[in-house]
């Protein structure tokens, strides 16, 4: 609980700093604050108790799972916020708003994985979503950004209403919003559950699948990702996506009674569809942000597989989320650096990048290799652990589709690598990239590599 309070307080501090005209220290204060919160969460995780004592209304429950995900969210937020001063250079008078929104978004994400009550879950979800809608539209003079914000808002509101209706139906079945009560009651009544319980469960998961852009609820993602300012896209495709996956995992864990064999088949089919549609469409993209969007969709399919063995795969889903989002941040840092000052993010910007900016090219290739699952990057172990889980629970068909999709994916990831190495660019002059972008890219890819060399950092945790 202390994590959530601290992050929310930090968001308010951001706004206050702007009022008191202290814009210069805004970013350092936010970063230091977030790192302090990170320290707090890690300490709580290892001590196994909260500094604020237990919450008697049981609104927030700090489990290993929620703390693990919270730590990941905070690390991602630090990396993204470190890039904001350069990104908002030309709109520097608005930076406090953007930074505060991002901090609130993290608060929402933390609430989404550590809720103890479905009301808290919905509040967290809305805080995250509304911040994300505004960030998508945060380039007000750009038509495409406005379009992205609008599309995201309409689709997101639709998904939120599904979730709210689902929560209401579940309340109707048990008369409680409390997850412990619901879990106990649903297990006790298994076999004679009212129909609206299952209905509520399905609506709840469908809403979350919208947020996590799982096929067939993914249509908003490419347009929104392409239109939004690139830094917001980075945030949405990493933090927001893994938050949605984490929440989905937690919801399914709580309501695991509703995971009938039929529902499992639905999950399997959706997972295969998500991976395949995402990958096949990604192959044809000319715009790097759209490609990343579709690749993100396919990774959501991989992460979704873990829902089929919820009892044992908490570590796996956290590992996959960390591996995916760190590689994503590294890739987006490079995209931000390369496409700075350009009005689009087409592949042509990357032609012959190796001659103009060898360091960033190397990092981008590493990020792409991690996303395609090549050892010794974390992406490989993520896929390996997922396949391991699936074989242990007897879902061979998912592993085979996962393998086929990995092969498709390596084709377009290496295609981008090839473009950077072999195509001729218009200019030969070195590309100047701000230090912040380079630093974030290096840190993100190093963390990814470290996770790959020492997977036990996450797999050994007691979640």
């Amino acid at each position, binding site marked *: 609980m202390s994590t959530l309070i601290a992050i929310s307080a930090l968001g308010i501090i951001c706004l206050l700093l702007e009022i008191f005209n202290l814009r210069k220290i805004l970013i350092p204060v936010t970063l230091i604050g977030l790192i302090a919160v990170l320290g707090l969460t890690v300490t709580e995780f290892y001590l196994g108790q909260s500094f604020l004592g237990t919450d008697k209304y049981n609104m927030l429950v700090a489990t290993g799972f929620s703390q693990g995900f919270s730590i990941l969210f905070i690390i991602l937020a630090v990396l993204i916020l470190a890039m904001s001063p350069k990104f908002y250079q030309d709109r520097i008078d608005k930076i406090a708003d953007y930074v505060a929104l991002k901090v609130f978004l993290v608060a929402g994400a933390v609430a989404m994985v550590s809720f103890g009550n479905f009301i808290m879950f919905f509040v967290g979800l809305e805080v995250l979503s509304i911040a994300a809608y505004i960030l998508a539209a945060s380039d007000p003079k750009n038509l495409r950004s406005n379009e992205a914000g609008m599309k995201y808002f309409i689709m997101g509101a639709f998904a939120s209403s599904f979730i709210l209706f689902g929560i209401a139906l579940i309340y109707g079945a048990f008369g409680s919003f409390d997850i412990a009560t619901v879990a106990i009651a649903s297990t006790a009544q298994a076999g004679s559950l009212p129909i609206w319980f299952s209905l509520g469960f399905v609506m709840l998961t469908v809403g979350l699948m919208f947020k996590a852009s799982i096929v067939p609820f993914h249509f908003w993602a490419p347009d929104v990702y392409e239109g939004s300012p690139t830094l917001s896209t980075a945030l949405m495709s990493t933090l927001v996506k893994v938050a949605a996956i984490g929440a989905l995992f937690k919801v399914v864990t709580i309501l695991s009674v509703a995971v009938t064999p039929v529902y499992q088949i639905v999950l399997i089919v959706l997972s295969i569809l998500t991976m395949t549609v995402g990958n096949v469409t990604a192959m044809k993209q000319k715009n790097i942000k759209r490609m990343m969007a579709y690749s993100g969709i396919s990774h959501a399919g991989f992460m979704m597989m873990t829902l089929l063995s919820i009892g044992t795969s908490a570590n796996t889903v956290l590992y996959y989320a960390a591996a995916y989002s760190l590689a994503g941040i590294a890739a987006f840092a490079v995209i931000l650096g390369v496409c700075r000052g350009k009005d689009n993010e087409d592949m042509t910007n990357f032609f012959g990048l190796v001659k103009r900016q060898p360091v960033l090219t190397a990092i981008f290739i590493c990020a792409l290799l991690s996303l395609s699952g*090549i050892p010794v990057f974390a992406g490989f172990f993520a896929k*390996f652990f997922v396949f391991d889980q699936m*074989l242990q629970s007897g879902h061979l068909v998912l592993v085979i589709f996962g393998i086929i999709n990995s092969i498709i994916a390596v084709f377009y990831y290496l295609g981008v690598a090839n473009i950077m190495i*072999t195509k001729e660019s218009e200019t030969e002059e070195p590309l100047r990239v701000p230090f912040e972008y380079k630093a974030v890219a290096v840190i993100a890819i190093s963390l990814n590599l470290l996770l790959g060399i020492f997977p036990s950092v996450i797999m050994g945790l007691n979640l």
Partner: protein
Amino acid sequence: MNITIILIILLVGAILTYLSGNRFASKVAMLFGVAAAIFSVALCLKYGAAGANFSIDWISKPNISFSLKADGLSMAMILMTTILLPIIILGTQSREFKNEKMLYSLVMFMVFAMVGAFLSSNALLYYVFWEMSLIPIYFIIVLWGNGEIVKRRKAAMTFFLFTFAGSLFMLAAIIYMYTKTGSFQLEAFYNASLSQTEQIWIFLAFFLAYAIKIPIFPFHTWQANVYQKAPAIGTMLLAGIMSKMGAYSVIRWQLPVTPYASNEFRTIIVILCIIGVVYGAIMALRQDDLKRFLAYASLSHVGFIAAGSYALTYDGLEGAVILILAHGFGIVGMFYSADVIQTRMHTLTISKMGGIKEHAPKFSVAFFISILSSIGIPLTFNFIGEFTIMFGLYQVNLWYALTIGTALFLGALFMLRMYQQVMLGEPSVNPFRDLSKTETVVFALIIGVLIFFGVYVKPVTDLVSTSLTEIVMYINR
């Protein structure tokens, strides 16, 4: 002595090579290559066939340890790899490359990964090294290869996708084995009790990975293009060491793990291998590009190695190991000859060559001995390997030995015909500079190895006999 030191030498070598800058890159790589070679020889002298083990915990859940095992078989492969590395570097040192620090660093890293794959006794660790060796060679082909960039990229991409696809199915099989045995260790895999259906699927998954890597007919379609487009240094690494990784893995990871399926598929696969031997020979006869010619010649020879391994007899396996080593050195000599010709004549088209012998007596002798060795003339290393493989095949079925023996004759035909076209004939108008000092040393080293073990093969057979006996025991379980 700790066997991880050899991996550390190579990894540190890769990093320092990159840091040392373009001027000194090849020298630093050379230094670490020689250090690795000396260390592996010392390792071999100390432990011999008895072997050494090393293991520390790596990942806690699922339980994966960083386990290395250097028994006779692995030791033979490492000796080949680490001795070939300085030879290859010495051979290409005098050539001009752009961005040499990157090239040599990638070469060192690739050798590091391959040595890791030869040493691992944990299936997942083995897979990690196996896959890691693919990245450097991909970039070596794309960045330093020959010919048009579009075609080169296509060849490299095909190669990457083929091998990656094959190895992913191997990964699935490895994970399946883990769910069955609860461990990734080699011993657990050897002692796993699998039903016949399970064995067949696992065998096929492994076979896909290895058949593409070696390559075995009809999984060879990537090979000729890649060998042609890759730079000389890349081709030598690919043909000399990387294809041997597949052959080694068949013996180490596939046959003893799935004995029933190996016996079931023996006939089909040996026939495929023999088709590959003949097909490679016929295709080689029709090539006009020297590197493509050597690629098909190599396809023919590795078909021999695979046939020996899949014969499942002790002699077949022993012959396969001997031929792995012999072919490793031999093919590097052949591709190096091609490189020598290319740097002097700026072409690889066989029909445009001829009459080199008059200008370059030393080179023609060296090239001729390499060719004789690859044909398998008695008193060369290849001869012993091929003969032992034929003996192994004869124990299975007389007809296998007979057909593959006929293919040997074809091999002699295409090799000598190529020599005739390239080296003999009217003296060419353009002068052809004879071998320089370093080039002579490279050829002398390769030929020395080929002749020495051709005369006295006992050290090799002694080295690998213990491991092979154990493997044959598991195959006949």
